[in-house]
């Protein structure tokens, strides 16, 4: 029994509100893509990306272009730069430049996999804690507190000295150190999302818990997630390099930036290049990832503010 007089009133057109979505708009609709794009407009992000790209290129292509083998003895130990050895020889007479070009890859892949593992598990734990609220939240968060009680480097050294200097172990221990830190941030961000009605709407129609956590909550915490990813990468690089420096990472005669610093630290006054090159590389890498993170964080604030409207 529809009253003809009423019919006109319900056809509120959409033409004014919904414009056809163009390709660019679709890109912007994926929030994390939008954030990355806006971040790239900032000077600090551009510098960060340039640094990181340069060092990644060095680490990846370095082994292919290195003039010598990293383990070949080519000159008098601690001899200075020459035409054959661009940055001189190290404490054992091996080419510093070749060892530098060969030593970056291990730092990079270990840091990257530790970050990935730590952030993925941390995000899962954080979302689960935020969504479950009750006892599970308490258990997860108190367990995190226990891990947080140890400084990350102590945790790493403890595990390595107990089990041995295995590379996969370092990756896992660094990742375990990241988990509670990531979980806290993500839990905090998700707690506000959990309270919104669309989560209740999903509960009312009987969505599975896992789908609510990863389908409803996860897409709403992408900004803190991106920031955490960058921040944890910075810490990972420092930690992995530190563990190598202390001699628990790659073992001699392999080349590794952290190991190089350790091997040549006694002769730093005679042949500074052997220490300086890896130190500069590690330092620049962390500065680079940090600049990118900062850019992402700034872009995320702008985008989130717009979406919250």
């Amino acid at each position, binding site marked *: 029994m529809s009253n003809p007089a*009423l019919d006109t009133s*319900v056809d509120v057109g959409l033409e004014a509100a919904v414009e056809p979505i163009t390709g660019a708009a679709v890109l912007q609709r994926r929030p994390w893509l939008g954030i990355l794009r806006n971040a790239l407009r900032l000077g600090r992000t551009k510098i960060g990306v340039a640094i990181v790209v340069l060092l990644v290129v060095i680490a990846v292509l370095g082994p292919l272009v290195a003039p010598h083998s990293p383990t070949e003895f080519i000159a008098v130990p601690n001899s200075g730069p020459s035409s054959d050895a661009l940055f001189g020889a190290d404490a054992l007479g091996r080419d510093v430049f070749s060892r530098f070009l060969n030593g970056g890859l291990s730092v990079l892949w270990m840091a990257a996999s530790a970050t990935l593992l730590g952030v993925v598990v941390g995000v899962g734990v954080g979302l689960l804690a935020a969504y479950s609220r009750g006892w599970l939240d308490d258990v997860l968060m108190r367990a995190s507190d226990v891990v947080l009680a140890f400084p990350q480097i102590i945790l790493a050294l403890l595990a390595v000295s107990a089990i041995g200097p295995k590379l996969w172990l370092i990756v896992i221990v660094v990742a375990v150190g990241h988990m509670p830190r990531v979980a806290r941030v993500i839990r905090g961000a998700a707690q506000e999302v959990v309270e*919104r*009605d669309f989560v209740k709407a999903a509960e009312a*129609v009987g969505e599975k818990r896992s789908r609510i956590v990863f389908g409803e909550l996860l897409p709403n915490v992408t900004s803190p997630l991106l920031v955490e990813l960058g921040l944890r990468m910075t810490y990972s690089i420092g930690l992995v390099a530190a563990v190598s420096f202390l001699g628990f990472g790659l073992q001699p005669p392999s080349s590794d930036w952290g190991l190089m610093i350790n091997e040549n630290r006694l002769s730093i006054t005679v042949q500074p290049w052997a220490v300086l090159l890896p130190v500069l590389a590690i330092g620049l890498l962390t500065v680079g990832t940090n600049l990118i993170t900062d850019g992402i964080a700034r872009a995320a604030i702008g985008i989130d503010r717009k979406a919250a409207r």
Partner: protein
Amino acid sequence: MTATAVEVRDLRVELTGRDIDVVDEISIEIRPGEVLGLVGESGSGKTTVGMALLGHVRRGGRLGGGAVLIDGSDLARLDDAGLRGLRGGTVAYIPQDPGTSLNPALRLRTQLREMLDAHAGGQSDAERDARLREALGEVALPSDDGFLSRYPHQLSGGQQQRVAIAMAFACRPNVIVCDEPTTGLDVTTQARVLETVRDLCRSHSVAALYVSHDLAVVAELADRVAVMYAGRIVESGTRDQLFRAARHPYTRRLLRAVPDLEGKRGVVGIPGFAPLPGRRPEWCFFEPRCTLATDVCRSAFPPAFEFEPGHRARCYHTDEAMREVPVEGATSVSVEHEPELVLAIRALDAHYGSRATLFGIELEVHRHECLALVGESGSGKTTLARCVAGLHKDYTGAVCLGDDELPPAARSRSDAARKQIQYVFQNPYASLNPRRTVGQTVARQLELFFPGRKDMGRRVGECLERVALSASAAAAYPDELSGGERQRVAIARALAAEPALMVCDEITSALDVSVQAAIIDLLRELRTDMGLSLLFITHNLALIRTIADRVAVMTEGRIVELGPTAQVLEHPNAPYTQQLLANTPSIAA
């Protein structure tokens, strides 16, 4: 001394750096002791005009022309110090949400003193203290030391709003700007606040600009009314001229969209949108939505025609409007059906932890029926709705779907039971996941309740068309839609499950009246077309007249009155219902 306290002449506010006006050609006058109601829907520029009286333009905008004169002096000529002296001293402001406008870290004494310290120079401490207590007394709040040392969060919403009013009147302003001060308050509290504002304006000869979207509130309070549409005043006149003999088609359609307690009539929405700044046509802004539009409407924005002294409207077709746009809507059609039980609630007691919130609730909803659940905030109506939907499981008693008793938690209910009861939330801005398109949201519902069905795209389109959205809306994200459209999406999501019962929790309270009318219309149509039953929760008594078959009145966790709509509204038995009805503002009053 001029006779008018406020004079606004051809005010124009535009966006900074662009030649786009937010409001333009605004001219109003308010005499001392007079209340001017400024009515408009969201985005019409009414708050911008209110702010201009304080010499303030929001960020991103600037004064583009015209003049605001307060007691004969032009605000544009004042420097910053002059403006500071004016604000709070000569022109006071009552904000919309006292919960956020009072500083939560300051005790009431400190908050009120700040105002007096800034504007009541030359008074001694004791005098200011006495003035402060007097101001609280005027708004019927206690003024003892215990009360003065409270923090804002220790007051109720109504008390907070009265503190804001006391602050506004404390320095004896000549002009007061009220920006929807009763939005978000219960009708009882609203009635009290309105009375306070009216009495204070009368007794102190204060000129008031009362900005509101609520026509019924303005009808109760204002001496004169100006109606804004898309940044222009389209009609102004005395209260009687406007509510009895409105001439502008927009005003007339707006009146028809307002549900009214007295009138036994349906509400009718206004199709289309108010054009945003920068997208307004070169001619009459209402023309695209107007049924009376002719070529002359597309020539230029109509000038103001004066009909009676003080009654002006900017339209060429006011006579046709009077004739052809009825203020009364269509009468609601009720259809008789064999009663078939859909939902039964038996002896339900609910609690939050150890605190009991619902006591012995007994309710039944039949097929095709709309049962309205009315009550003020805190009456437990939302808790009851959540018990029905399985979102609040802390209860004893039974919720039965047909003859089957349901488990308390939605998660433990069967798919079939969850499908039959669908919930639509109050706030459409929070109930849709901002990271999903409308299409994804609706499609998920179809996947859940009709797994394995093909042709998803077409079926999503059908669901959207059922709520009068175009199928192309599926690609949109919620933040690209207006509030009314979002609520339609939420309804489309609920309907996608093809439920027997839809629980509507204050679903129109976040929307403009013309949009609310369209949603109410839609619900009524769906009820007849789909055989849907509704549990319609609202605090708006006037609204139930147009939609509900039966009404249950709730207070303090109990149902105090239950009966057919007409009977409850015309011959209320419970004292609480009588009081509620008396406090509800009405245009016909």
